[in-house]
């Protein structure tokens, strides 16, 4: 009994719970479902079957697990010409750093289950989320391959443009609630006043920016196969390539959690109670489910749109999305001024 108690204590220790269970295990569980959904819907539009043969009875649902196993057992080739240390460290660091922002957000209103004090959680989590991109550029540079370098540069361009938009759009909720605390932001949305309804402009800006900053399928400019092979990851193989892909995916999941907290009401309409299950587990699940739905919406665009050119994507960011984010910010200020927000 004692051993189990200790294990439960360790797992439910908020930093570990959020970092490992919500940051790493939950995305892996979600990715299997979402990628299957994404491939099946795209296949439906394109009049084919999609994944089928791995498990025909459930429509090929565990195809991704088979793919992951293939990646896991593939030989990791490290070319002679690469900068070995950086080449190995960059993807792993990018993976770890893309999970880290999860510990800086609250998954419940019970202060006992916060990993860190939440007074400035909006700022801290956004700041942490911007670090991992540097390591993708670094991976491209260390690969010593022309396509990798071009891909890394594109990644840098995209990140500088779109992460600013994400930060601006999400900060507009701080303007609305006059607080940098995600708990205050969520609690201000009590009673169905979700900020997606009150401030759709900022939500739209955040949504599109996340899609572009994480190289979602129609906007995978840094990795577009026909120009730069696999972008920064051209020289990677096996598990390291999988880690690279996983980092991008987890990053998008983390941004989905941010958007859920900022615009989709966080753990609302559920009211966290006492104890681990009602105070921490269920609110976490509510947030994960909302983020998963958001991820599913992201994947819908896959079949319909082509790829923007890099300069057009940047034009789009600065000429369309930047004003949109500013308008969202202004709308938030206006609503706070006229007292629309509790």
């Amino acid at each position, binding site marked *: 009994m004692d051993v189990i108690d200790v294990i439960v204590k360790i797992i439910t220790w908020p930093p570990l719970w959020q970092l490992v269970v919500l940051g790493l295990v939950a995305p892996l569980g979600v990715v299997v479902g979402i990628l299957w959904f994404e491939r099946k819907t*795209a296949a439906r*539009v*394109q*009049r*084919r079957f999609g994944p089928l043969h791995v498990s025909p009875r459930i429509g090929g649902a565990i195809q991704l697990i088979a793919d992951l196993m293939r990646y896991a057992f593939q030989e990791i080739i490290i070319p002679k010409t690469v900068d070995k240390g950086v080449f190995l460290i960059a993807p792993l660091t990018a993976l770890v750093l893309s999970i880290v922002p999860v510990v800086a957000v609250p998954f419940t209103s019970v202060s006992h289950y916060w990993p860190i004090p939440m007074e400035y959680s909006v700022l801290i989590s956004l700041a942490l989320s911007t670090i991992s991109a540097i390591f993708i550029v670094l991976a491209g540079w260390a690969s010593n391959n*022309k*396509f990798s370098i*071009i891909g890394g540069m594109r990644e840098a361009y995209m990140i500088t443009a779109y992460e600013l938009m994400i930060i601006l759009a999400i900060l507009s909720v701080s303007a609305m609630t006059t607080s940098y605390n995600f708990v205050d932001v969520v609690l201000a949305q009590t009673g169905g006043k979700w900020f997606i309804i009150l401030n759709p402009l900022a939500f739209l800006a955040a949504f599109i920016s996340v899609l572009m900053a994480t190289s979602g*399928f*129609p906007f*995978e*400019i840094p990795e*577009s*196969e*026909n*120009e730069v*092979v696999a972008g920064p990851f051209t020289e990677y193989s096996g598990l390291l390539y999988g880690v690279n892909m996983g980092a991008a995916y987890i990053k998008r999941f983390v941004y989905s959690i941010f958007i859920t907290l900022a615009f989709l009401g966080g753990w609302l309409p559920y009211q966290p109670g006492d104890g681990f299950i009602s105070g921490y587990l269920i609110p976490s699940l509510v947030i994960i489910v909302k983020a998963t739905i958001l991820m599913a919406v992201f994947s819908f665009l*896959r*079949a*319909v*749109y*082509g*790829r*923007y*050119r*890099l*300069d*057009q994507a940047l034009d789009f960011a600065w000429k369309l999305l930047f004003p949109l984010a500013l308008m969202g910010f202004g709308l938030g200020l206006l609503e706070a001024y006229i007292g629309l927000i509790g």
Partner: protein
Amino acid sequence: MSGFVSTRGQVGFNDLKIPGAWSRKIGKDLYEVFIGPQHPGSGHMRIIIRIDGDVIVEADPDMGYVHRTMEKLGEGREWIKGIPLYERMAIHDACNVTLPYVRAVEQLLGIEAPLRAKYLRVLLCEINRIAAYLYGFGIFGVFVGHSTMYMWPFGDREVWIELADWLTGARLTHSYPVFGGVRRDVPADFTNQLRKAIRYMRKRLEEYRKIYVDNPVIRARLEDVGVIPKNLAIELGITGPNLRASGVLYDVRYNDPYEVYDELDFEIPVFQEGDALARVWQRVEEIKQSLRILEQVADWLDKHPREPILHDRFWKTAPPLHKKIFETEGRAKLVPLYALLKVPKGKAYAKAETARGEITYYVESDGGQKPYRVRIVSASARNAIVFKYILPGHRVMDLPTIYGSIDYFPPEADR
């Protein structure tokens, strides 16, 4: 930098006089990228680009990776064996590519195919043309990152390939036109299925327009990209839909009609813009015209009774068994005469409009069982030069767009 010095210390890279091992000086701040021949977006060729930042400054199309010595191989085979050989240049456009060879040899023999055979040739030519355009759409779709436009045309192309399979017995390399006629007559009920396919294709073209050609993202990618001005198009001698999209009315089917194209009612669409979008529209409109031609061919085939589809010179040598097979199954088996065919001494020249433009054959015979010389100028070989003049000034991301919109097909160009 004074060139590369090898580790052995004696010979610099520039001292080697081996072709292909010469080093080139490139300008300051230029970045040389070799795209192909093993690049996911290059096809069987290489484009060497030098970029300044994100803008292409110079581009060298480097072709010849799939050269298969078609012309030389042709000199070593009997006349009839040239047909399956030359259609390997563009297997999905087999009828169009081999037809001028057949017609050139027919000129030397002094014979002409029966009228029904001519209609059947036109039938397969147009089916091939549509399938080839759809193939080009699919490749182009994946180049601009539009996965649906990759899957749809490849799926719809299957309709036309199945029709060709039904007609000729082969999905791609049909070897359908032979000297003095064609190999098979249409199966029963073929024309009805053909009309069904035409109706289906018209409906699908409208759906392509909705999801692809009028898609705002795709339009932003294609408009004013890779513009070939009219005068440059004429100067470089490019051909086919690329030429017509630049505002030049030139189509062999119209300017120099062969087979029964002069009896059919169709139009040659011409676009003035000359950019990638115009080239897509050009192909869409040409598919519509091909459908129109197919409709008329289907009507003609329905109205006219079955008659021999081989010229009498060959047909009269056919054994009774062959004639029986033709009457019961509509298949004209190759008569033994073809194997020992001797073509009179002389020179002949023929051309046709393939899906990628004009293809010309110059055939010379010394009176023997094998050609003395067959010279082929294919459409893709003429279009390849355009990369050198169009790419500079565009961004790297425009390269697949332009490459896809030209619909360049390396095996056809390299022969």
